């Protein structure tokens, strides 16, 4: 009897300890999440305030009066629609192009046997060690010599190739069993068909992950579009946003409203693609 009592007590103590651990864990994670999300919420809040209320003291999180007009103003003040279209064109082209070229190069590096393959791959990887700022000016000069300034080509072409994407996809392709490829060869596929019918369908998670990263990078990129565009009609969103930041004054409410507009597609993209990004992939046509 005493034994069962003791057991029960021990059990309860164990459960209590587990509960305490959970509370700590969730408490900690909630605190972190709050810290991370506050700037965004503040952005949202500011974007809905009257300009006079921005630096009110004590700060108010919820605006006295919701000021939807900021969005309309931000949209009207600068050619926002134009920036939006530019950003979409550039980001989508860079994403599709870079995923495509990276996948092709990765397939070659992972699966084709050609002399000097590994050395070439190392050299390719080596380019990742060079910071973008170093190549920025030379690339700009090349673009200028080719008369590409203020064109989509200047915005898109330099983003079409990436050592990082190639590296990432190559590593993924290497995990695809060689047997599948050999089965495909015997089924009568050539290299291009193996790539499109076997490798690509099996690499969807990796391709989507890379695509998401590339899109985010291109969408948020500020420096390069700033350098190669002069005309207002060629600017992308991040460059356009800067218009709200004057030398002497900044339209905080409009800037924040603009930022929210810029942020939204990215957020949507992440929500749609997150199952690919977080999900592992099981190779289940094979043993195991």
């Amino acid at each position: 009897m005493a034994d069962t009592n003791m057991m029960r007590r021990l059990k309860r103590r164990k459960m209590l300890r587990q509960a305490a651990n959970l509370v700590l864990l969730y408490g900690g994670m909630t605190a972190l999440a709050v810290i991370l999300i506050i700037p965004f919420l503040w952005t949202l809040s500011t974007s809905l305030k009257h300009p006079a209320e921005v630096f009110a003291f004590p700060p108010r999180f919820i605006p006295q009066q919701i000021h939807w007009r900021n969005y309309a103003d931000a949209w009207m003040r600068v050619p926002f629609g134009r920036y939006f279209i530019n950003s979409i064109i550039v980001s989508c082209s860079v994403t599709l192009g870079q995923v495509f070229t990276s996948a092709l190069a990765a397939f070659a590096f992972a699966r084709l046997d050609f002399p000097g393959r590994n050395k070439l791959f190392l050299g390719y990887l080596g380019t990742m060690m060079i910071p973008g700022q170093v190549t920025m000016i030379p690339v700009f000069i090349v673009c200028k010599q080719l008369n590409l300034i203020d064109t989509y080509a200047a915005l898109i072409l330099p983003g079409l190739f990436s050592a990082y994407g190639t590296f990432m996809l190559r590593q993924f392709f290497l995990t695809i069993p060689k047997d599948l490829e050999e089965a495909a060869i015997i089924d009568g596929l050539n290299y291009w068909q193996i790539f499109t019918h076997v490798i690509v369908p099996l690499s969807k998670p990796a391709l989507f992950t890379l695509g998401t990263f590339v899109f985010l990078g291109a969408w948020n990129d500020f420096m390069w579009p700033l350098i190669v565009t002069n005309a207002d009609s060629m600017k992308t969103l991040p460059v356009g946003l800067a218009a709200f930041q004057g030398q002497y004054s900044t339209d905080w409410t409009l800037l924040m409203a603009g930022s929210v507009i810029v942020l939204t597609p990215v957020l949507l993209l992440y929500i749609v693609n997150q199952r690919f990004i977080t999900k592992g992939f099981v190779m289940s046509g094979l043993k195991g």
Partner: protein
Amino acid sequence: MAQVLLKNVCKRYGEVTAVRDVSLAIEDRQFCVLVGPSGCGKTTTLRMIAGLEDITEGEIWVGERVVNYVHPKDRDIAMVFQNYALYPHMTVEENMGFGLRVRRFPKDEIKQRTDEAAGVLDIMQYLDRTPRELSGGQKQRVAVGRAIVRKPKVFLFDEPLSNLDAKLRVQMRAQLKKLHERLQTTIVYVTHDQVEAMTLGDIIVVMKDGVIQQVGEPLTVYDNPCNRFVAGFIGTPPMNFIEVTVRRSGGAVVLDEGGFSVTLPPVLAAKAAAYDGKPATLGIRPEHIHDKATYTGAANAGNTVEAGVDVVELLGNEKHLHLAAGSSMFVAVVDAHIAAHAGRKLPVVFDMDKVHLFDKETENAVF
């Protein structure tokens, strides 16, 4: 109609020779099994027939033509892989029909062939599933199905059963045998399992270190192994090897182990004559060693050995006796009901008509 012919085929990877001067004729509709321990070159040989490996030297013929430089897809072969290699993103039906789709067969013919193969393999009800939803045995059948829808001249199997559990393996083995009778095509089958080789093969090819040791019908190879390696590799439990000295005594030839001796029958004695006074290896299969008390043949001083029982393994239908005599150990397979106890003596009879003798140096069979 396709025979497969290998003429002096070699495969080298840099300094390493994986396959050495392999010549082999596989008749049309024959079930040929390449068997050997791992690293013996059997899979490499198969992959060269498939076209997945280049041929360093020699020629491979499929049907009427040399296929050395023919692309795998044009060799009219189909291959079943050890780990199935099904496309994970396609259903069973798509997996099976993929080869035909790539070759631009009309849709209804693909459908008809897929259904037919699925019927033969009893996988009709899985056609809509993806490989991940299938068990190992089902995946293996789909892999076979993918090969048979193509109706190739030659089937290549690369250890197709080695990932299955023991019971399923026996089942699939019988199915493959039936399938071969039904399809009437040439099959080249690679395995390291000598039981599979014995049960499936019309002919078996025993390989070791990239060299063919022996080619023949299963029973021929079993009864007349050409060397000590083949003798030891084919058969379970394996053949017993006992080191002896050949000695002529009177008119008979005696094999003297030191601790005991046995006498060769006259037919075999003549063949062993050249080894008089020399050491040799006696080979005898476990089922050719009998318990003296229940032996129905003639037991005499020339074939009886007084052995000590070391270990008794009861398998239900039979007993494996681990015996010791002189300085040798050997195994006998006897009826399960024979009384034998570890630690006791047991007189056994060697069936001397069935023994083999191997040269000690070359390890080749004398008989």
